């Protein structure tokens, strides 16, 4: 009959990091044992890329570069968005299975189950990016910028994935339903297609150009093109590399801060 308080109000400093690793490993074990979804997610960009290259390369002309060089960076960004939808679905399934409730009742930081998901899904996205790039190279894609610039591009891609994750995490936590998440796909298609991903913005109707040229997906596409194809390509597309990198980082920071705050709030109050 003691009233001793065995609990502690503050979790140890390393808890977020170690629990993120625990959850990420769990997700990756899951993926290894039930690889169907992941295999589809990782291979579909290859198919998409090769098809786009074969079908459109002859008819779409882009300034200062070849169509396949223009296309591959955009495919990598598209990967991140599709990967994000998978993350949202994965979280929704965890909510439905009662696992999120389990995690929430344990002395683990609220951010750990979410951060763990972002890390495991980033790993899958990077695998998809490597495969898509390799497929791109097979159909004519080349890096035309220096190694350092390309590495910066890879770093930027990781930043974009980790930032957008929180947006998709909010979607997964709030909807808790894979079908509802599926039904939001058109919104993401809007951002992917009304952009500079597959065509130069100048070919769009004038009233669409403002949105299409400046929305985040286009900024991300341009930044990756600039870093992998060289500053000349970036300038031909309308912006210098520095501007594009800063704009990308700013979009990422904005999206991450707002949606991570919202996601954690939902998570704690769900």
């Amino acid at each position: 009959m003691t009233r001793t308080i065995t609990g502690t109000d503050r979790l140890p400093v390393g808890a977020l990091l170690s629990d993120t690793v625990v959850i990420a490993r769990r997700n990756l074990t899951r993926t290894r044992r039930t690889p169907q979804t992941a295999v589809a997610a990782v291979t579909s960009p290859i198919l998409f890329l090769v098809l786009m290259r074969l079908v459109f390369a002859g008819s779409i002309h882009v300034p200062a570069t070849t169509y396949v060089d223009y296309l591959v960076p955009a495919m990598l960004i598209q990967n991140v968005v599709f990967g994000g939808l998978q993350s949202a679905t994965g979280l929704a399934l965890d909510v439905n299975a009662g696992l999120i409730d389990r995690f929430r009742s344990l002395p683990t930081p609220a951010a750990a189950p979410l951060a763990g998901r972002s890390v495991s899904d980033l790993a899958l996205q990077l695998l998809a990016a490597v495969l898509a790039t390799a497929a791109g190279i097979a159909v004519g894609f080349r890096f035309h910028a220096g190694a350092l610039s390309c590495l910066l591009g890879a770093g930027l891609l990781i930043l974009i994935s980790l930032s957008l994750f929180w947006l998709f995490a909010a979607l997964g936590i709030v909807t808790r339903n894979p079908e509802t998440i599926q039904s939001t796909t058109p919104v993401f298609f809007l951002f992917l297609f009304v952009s500079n991903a597959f065509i130069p913005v100048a070919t769009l109707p004038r009233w669409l150009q403002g949105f299409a040229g400046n929305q985040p997906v286009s900024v991300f596409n341009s930044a990756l093109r600039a870093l992998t194809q060289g500053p000349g390509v970036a300038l031909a597309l309308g912006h210098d590399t520095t501007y594009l990198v800063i704009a990308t980082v700013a979009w990422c920071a904005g999206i991450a801060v707002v949606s991570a705050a919202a996601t954690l709030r939902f998570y704690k109050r769900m």
Partner: protein
Amino acid sequence: MQMSEPIIGIAGVRKSFGRTTALDGLSMQVAEGAVAALLGPNGAGKTTLVRILATLLVPDAGQVTVAGIDVVRRPVAVRGVIGLAGQHAAVDQTLTGRENLVMVARLYRLSAAQARRRSEEVLERLSLTSAADRPVRTYSGGMRRRLDVGASLVGQPRILLLDEPSTGLDPAARLELWSFLRGLVAQGTTILLTTQQLEEADHLADAVTIIDHGALVTEGTPAQLKAGLGYETIEVALADPAQLPQAARLLESLAEESPGIDGLAARISFRAPPAAKPLPSAVRLLDRAGIAVEDVTARRPSLDDVFLSVLGRTAGGEIPAGDGIADARPA
């Protein structure tokens, strides 16, 4: 009951979801080392209360403490002393039993080595060692449920919260779970469980709290609650259903209220105070009238009877059968 130092203290807790009131000023206490059963029909507020105790929900009003810790002000501290097994077995189907336990143990802040050791111990206690390295999706429902309870045990919680632990289990698996839970209690764990099965509360609980519409209906030990009813239920089966009305008229003199007639089974049931020796009297009355009796049984009040009587859910004249609330509740 002596509850000078309740390990769970709930005072005036309220919780609404939109316009639905889930908990309406509920107060109750659980003594350390006890098994407390929270009994109530669907929508009574049982799950809401468990979720508040597990820090998953914040109450709108009232005070809730677990091991003396306020669940609203210090949720992280509460999480270190509780284990939760919710309504569905919250284990990862693709992981093995062992992997599930180690994961949860790590999140209980055990080191990797400690987590492995604790998981091994729990697997042994759950008799799951031989299945430990199989994916959970190959487990039976009973094994999955045991693993789920086990996952909440790897952190050695002082208080185990179980929301309808035997839902979906076959009778054998349910008995297995009960004996496992009794073992835990013997080692000093306090258990709060919700159930719709009166039998479960009767088997396991030291204290039963009946709630409905988010408020306390009655509480006490199973024995106290049954004693409070003060009657026996007599069931008489006749050889000839045609004699049912006549028999019912005869038995009316013994019964507290008019007897219930089940025409299909040719049965009559009625309640009477034990002092009236209703069983021999009934047999004598029917015998004298020349009515052939197939079978007669006297039943001490069950928790079913308590439940039905306090919630007022017995439809007049219906036999209060012992198979759960769902049947007795009007749709």
